């Protein structure tokens, strides 16, 4: 069972809202966030390859599909297409923000003492980049005037001493963490691409009108 102590993430300093009457608006930050998800996706590919080789076969085999046990607490990227399309901007952004907050927390908790120094460095580097993505999403939310999600009292992710976790179960958890991260980054690219298109300055009133109804 994956559990995590992550209070620090929920207390990110509030990002001051950008001046919405400025020329640029939230467009550039959305673009930047999109670019970041692509960059992270690329980084993850190499990190995951190395990490799965470290876990050893069958974890690094292409069709590997173990049961999802403790991985139930991982935020799931997979979502029904219609549900995804109908998300409003605030919900879309909030889901992304919450997902990466949890994922970053779990990543940081990867207690891989035995991993090579190089692997630990790659993990740390990836965590830093992921923290950057979180900041970027926070920036977009602030620019659009949405509040950062705060945890409800009592639902803060806190560490609960679960049953003694065998090493093999831990390996399966690690596998699913990387898989879910991957899926989220794919999805986020589409999320931010969608937001980007919505925020584009009206090229033609007709087009925008259709867009507003058609999506």
């Amino acid at each position, binding site marked *: 069972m994956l559990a995590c102590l992550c209070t620090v993430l929920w207390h990110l300093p509030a990002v001051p809202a950008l001046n919405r009457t400025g020329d640029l608006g939230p467009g550039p930050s959305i673009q930047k966030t999109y670019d970041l998800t692509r960059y992270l996706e690329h980084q993850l590919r190499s990190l995951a390859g190395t990490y799965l080789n470290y876990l050893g076969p069958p974890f690094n085999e292409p069709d590997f599909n173990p049961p999802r046990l403790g991985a139930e607490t991982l935020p799931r990227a997979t979502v029904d297409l219609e549900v995804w399309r109908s998300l409003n901007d605030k919900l879309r952004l909030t889901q992304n923000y919450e997902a990466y907050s949890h994922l970053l927390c779990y990543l940081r908790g990867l207690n891989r003492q035995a991993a090579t*120094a190089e692997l630990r460095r790659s993990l740390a580097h990836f965590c830093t980049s992921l923290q950057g993505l979180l900041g970027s999403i926070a920036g977009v939310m602030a620019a659009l005037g949405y509040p950062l999600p705060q945890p409800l009292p009592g639902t803060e992710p806190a560490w609960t001493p679960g049953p003694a976790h065998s090493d093999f179960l831990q390996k399966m958890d690690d596998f699913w963490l990387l898989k879910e991260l991957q899926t989220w980054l794919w999805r986020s690219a589409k999320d931010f691409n969608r937001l980007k298109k919505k925020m584009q300055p009206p090229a033609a009133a007709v087009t925008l009108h259709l867009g507003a109804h058609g999506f």
Partner: protein
Amino acid sequence: MQFARAAFSSRDTAVISPQDPTLLIGSSLQATCSVHGDPPGATAEGLYWTLNGRRLPPELSRVLNTSTLALALANLNGSRQQSGDNLVCHARDGSILAGSCLYVGLPPEKPFNISCWSKNMKDLTCRWTPGAHGETFLHTNYSLKYKLRWYGQDNTCEEYHTVGPHSCHIPKDLALFTPYEIWVEATNRLGSARSDVLTLDILDVVTTDPPPDVHVSRVGGLEDQLSVRWVSPPALKDFLFQAKYQIRYRVEDSVDWKVVDDVSNQTSCRLAGLKPGTVYFVQVRCNPFGIYGSKKAGIWSEWSHPTAASTPRSERPGPGGGACEPRGGEPSSGPVRRELKQFLGWLKKHAYCSNLSFRLYDQWRAWMQKSHKTRNQDEGILSSGRRGTARGKVLPDKL
């Protein structure tokens, strides 16, 4: 697949025993996969084992009872990866029921060959060699420990892998004038080992930065000399020591360095006997000899960044030397060379056998050197101010 997923809730439906065992290479393992819970069709029949993704031969398995499948492995090899070999129990349809990580390896051997150096007496970096070349197949943790010889408690170094995989850096709080005892402890799941203790005094292992501001320049029009100047490393300027320097230089396309040794306490040197019209790369390094009155040499610094310079052009080749020229050295045969060069140039244009003339000239040179040597042996005279101390200088100083 649906069946396998549905079978899982928060409790496993199968358990492998032993869970995550640690074993010595060559030992045997008896394992069991016990299926429990109530899913239909989940009996020991049809279950099978894989190890690191490879299905194990059925003759190694045995059904113990309706819910337990046993496995017997003998003469185990070292683990394929340090995270442990993956032993998995599968249902008939291939889905994973349970897993266990096997750690098969060797206890660590004694680390040895500890060597340490201190940069400007401010820190200490140590390197060691793991015993048995480090191949234990298990994650082995190395810990560098140190303590002051006659008092003080054990300290543990914390910054690892600074100069390679088996190294550690102690950045501060180092005492002088009392020896340190230093050793390395290696630990893994199968045991631990400790290196011999190295005793050292920080002052005996001091190194410093390479000399900054190395400049290489021509010496007037001299074709076979270059002047090297540098600055004494500033970090140690407040400590009493005599610096020793070494200079090395090579021709641009060569990999052979020539070294000038024993450059004591000076910050310039003249290289002589060089080839004219050639680009040379020059580096300097420093040894903080005799820090605080210690009679010992320190540790040589890294070489400075290569500095390049070229000697002025000439048609005459010159052999290399190995020491610094005396500062007041006169240019050797400057006007003579020039005239010779002109003559040879003219010969080349006007003579029918121009190639012959160069060969003849070389022969003549060699003859002159021989007769010059014999002359000196007879007379025992070194003409003052004209002769360089460089080895291998073949040009006579007088025609």
